[in-house]
């Protein structure tokens, strides 16, 4: 199931994006070589025409296609790895890694210039970023090992120091004769429009690698993320697995530097996975969904940015991911806000109805001389008497009655009188019985005074299921036989009542 989902996602990406874009890329490569993306970036700011919309949506333009496909592939990889990063509770570590790449990029640039190269060679810059990120990670580990500084403090220090160093080096580069045209700032905020075919190759190979590793090591990663101690006791090399995981994070981060920039890449890693968590309780689904949400936000963000060229793609991508996160937070089927709210309101409604039914039954009971179930009969109930039986206001009571009517427990209500139907009367008897059984149990077993027991019982009885009621009957031998002695008397005087 899990595997099938992952394979399906992979297949879809290849079919939809990789194949057509490669075909386009090959043609363009042969005819025009790598075209600069100026045509997109130089357009004046205006709302896109229908033709533009169509062109971007259908990926007709080579540059748009390159950028959109790269961004969505990157989003897929980020969403996937982000899931493990999130569950390993290493979100801040991802942030530290990405910030720590900046000095490496700057040093790589300076080094390449010093050796007479152009300094803008992408593989060189990315290699520098990778090494620097790893160094940052190693520094965090070293601080944790040598001193007693806590993890989060160590990461905060490394993050800011490395980033500060990077910014200082950037200042130096600006002063260099070659530096003005370097465009290294693009790494900080990201600049998708500057992507070329080589970048696409880097991004797609990183995505495929991430996908393969996650599928291959799914079991191992799940174990380490869930229970590190147990994994270690079984002989799994936790450090090695962690290194592989963070190595993937580093590679994805470095690949994503150009698209979203090193400040925003953490949002690209964490947000899709966090959004996916609202929809599922299964790890495999969470990863697949995280990849999907990441891919979608990459695609939409890059497309929007292509339509409105003044808007930076990195920021738009992250904002799209945030919108998807918000949607998931509210509508998520597993733990979304609405689902929880709905469950709670349903329970509330049930509790309100049970209160009404029990009050009604106890009033009917009080009309009979010798309270016995055979003698309690259904009949019109005075609403005024019900008001005094609980601490509810008249509007509250009316609301409960109306709801019970909607749920078909009440036959009619008018002129201050209320009449339960057959189902309502039976339910009322059952609710009252459960309540009293529970009260008796509490008095006998939990030493609760009879005049307090009503409130305590009230808190629990609404969630009593059939098995628990059976258990109660077993524990209270006098009421074991539901037919012979069906209704225990109330252990305390019932307020309100017939008077």
């Amino acid at each position, binding site marked *: 199931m899990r*595997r099938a989902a992952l394979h399906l996602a992979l297949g879809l990406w290849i079919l939809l994006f990789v194949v057509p874009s490669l075909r386009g890329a090959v043609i363009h490569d042969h005819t025009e070589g790598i075209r600069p993306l100026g045509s997109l970036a130089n357009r004046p700011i205006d709302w896109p025409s229908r033709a533009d919309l169509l062109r971007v949506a259908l990926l007709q333009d080579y540059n748009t296609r390159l950028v959109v496909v790269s961004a969505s592939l990157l989003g897929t990889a980020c969403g996937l790895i982000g899931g493990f990063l999130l569950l390993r509770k290493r979100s801040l570590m991802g942030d530290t890694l990405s910030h720590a790449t900046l000095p490496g990029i700057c040093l790589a640039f300076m080094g390449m210039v010093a050796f007479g190269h152009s300094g803008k060679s992408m593989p060189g810059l990315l290699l520098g970023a990778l090494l620097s990120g790893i160094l940052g990670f190693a520094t965090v580990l070293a601080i944790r090992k040598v001193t007693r500084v806590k993890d989060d403090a160590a990461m905060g220090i490394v993050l800011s120091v490395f980033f500060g160093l990077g910014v200082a080096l950037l200042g130096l580069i600006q002063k260099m004769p070659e530096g003005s045209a370097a465009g290294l700032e693009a790494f900080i905020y990201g600049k998708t429009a500057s992507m070329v075919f080589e970048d696409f190759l880097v991004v797609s190979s990183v995505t495929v690698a991430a996908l393969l590793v996650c599928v291959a090591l799914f*079991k191992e990663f799940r174990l380490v993320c869930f229970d590190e*101690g147990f994994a270690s006791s079984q002989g799994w090399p936790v450090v090695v697995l962690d290194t592989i995981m963070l190595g993937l994070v580093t590679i994805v981060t470095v690949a994503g530097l150009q698209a979203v920039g090193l400040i925003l890449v953490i949002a690209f890693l964490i947000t899709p996975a966090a959004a996916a968590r609202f929809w*599922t309780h299964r790890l495999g689904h969470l990863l697949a969904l995280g990849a999907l949400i990441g891919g979608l936000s990459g695609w939409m963000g890059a497309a929007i940015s292509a339509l409105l060229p003044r808007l930076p793609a990195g920021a738009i991508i992250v904002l799209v991911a945030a919108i998807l996160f918000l949607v998931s937070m509210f509508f998520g089927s597993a733990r979304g806000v609405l689902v929880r709210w709905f469950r709670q309101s349903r329970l509330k409604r049930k509790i309100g109805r049970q209160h009404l039914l029990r009050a009604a039954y106890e009033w009917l009971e009080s009309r009979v001389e010798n309270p016995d179930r055979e003698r309690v009969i259904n009949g019109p109930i005075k609403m005024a008497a019900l008001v005094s039986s609980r601490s509810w206001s008249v509007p509250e009571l009316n609301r409960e009655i109306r709801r019970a009517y909607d749920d078909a427990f009440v036959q009619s209500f008018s002129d201050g009188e209320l009449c339960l139907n057959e189902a309502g009367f039976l339910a009322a008897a059952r609710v009252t019985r459960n309540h009293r059984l529970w009260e008796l149990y509490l008095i006998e077993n939990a030493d609760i005074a009879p005049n307090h027991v009503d409130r305590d019982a009230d808190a629990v009885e609404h969630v009593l299921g059939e098995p628990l009621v059976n258990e109660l009957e077993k524990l209270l031998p006098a009421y074991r036989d539901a037919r012979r002695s069906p209704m225990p008397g109330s252990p305390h005087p019932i307020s309100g009542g017939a008077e």
Partner: protein
Amino acid sequence: MIRLFHFDRATQSGQAPSGEEGGREFPEHSARSPLSVHDLTVAYHRKPVVWDVDLELPEGKLVALVGPNGAGKSTLIKACQELVPKASGLVQVYGRPYRHQRHLVGYVPQRESVDWDFPVSAMDVVAMGGYHRLGWLRPVNKRCRSEAMQALERVGLADLAGRQISQLSGGQQQRTFLARALAQDARLYLMDEPFAAVDAATERVIVELLHELKARGRTCFVVHHDLATVTEYFDWVVLMNMRVVDAGPTKEVFHQENLRKTYGGKLTVLSAAAEAVRNAGE
């Protein structure tokens, strides 16, 4: 301060922690012993937590590890499995170093040691017990799942196999951990407070399980908090407060004096009560 106090007591009671016992001979550790610990010392940031522990468990017995809070019980269990670094010492499982015998040891960690909000089902967790048999890269297969299912059945959770673990009660979570250890199919089980904060039904299940394991010749070394049930549940007891106070069959070792030694001042009410009982008897 408390640690210092124990430290002093440890040095006073004749077993000097270092230096002087150079000539002391190791007891003969038999190859049959499921777990033998020699001179184990563990320190967190230079504070000793487990001091110079020598221990040899008998095979096929249920052994309780008893001691006050902070006595190093969990640390001892972890150090035996190399989950915390040892300052010194040697741990042998069935006569060979732990490192070579990992597959013989099942582990039930403390329930609080993991995040129960993790997106896995009870079944997924129990299947983890069989991961070491699968080895690298091989996905969870049918056999692994069916073994996990059997383990879940034995702890009475077969119906809840597919449930996400945060939706299990505390006792059911504990049973999930036990089932995972069962799925490991080990010969020695190390359990860290399996009875902590569980309901009566779970306690019953765990006790039954322990007896079942014993009947099959397995050895269980269980960190236990409830002194009232030690004699009822366990054949053997190890009393520990940073160092081992005493170890042996429950009937011989689990008595007032040892308890007072183990719990120090913390058990004054109990010792006073014991005193009262003795006085009343005379």
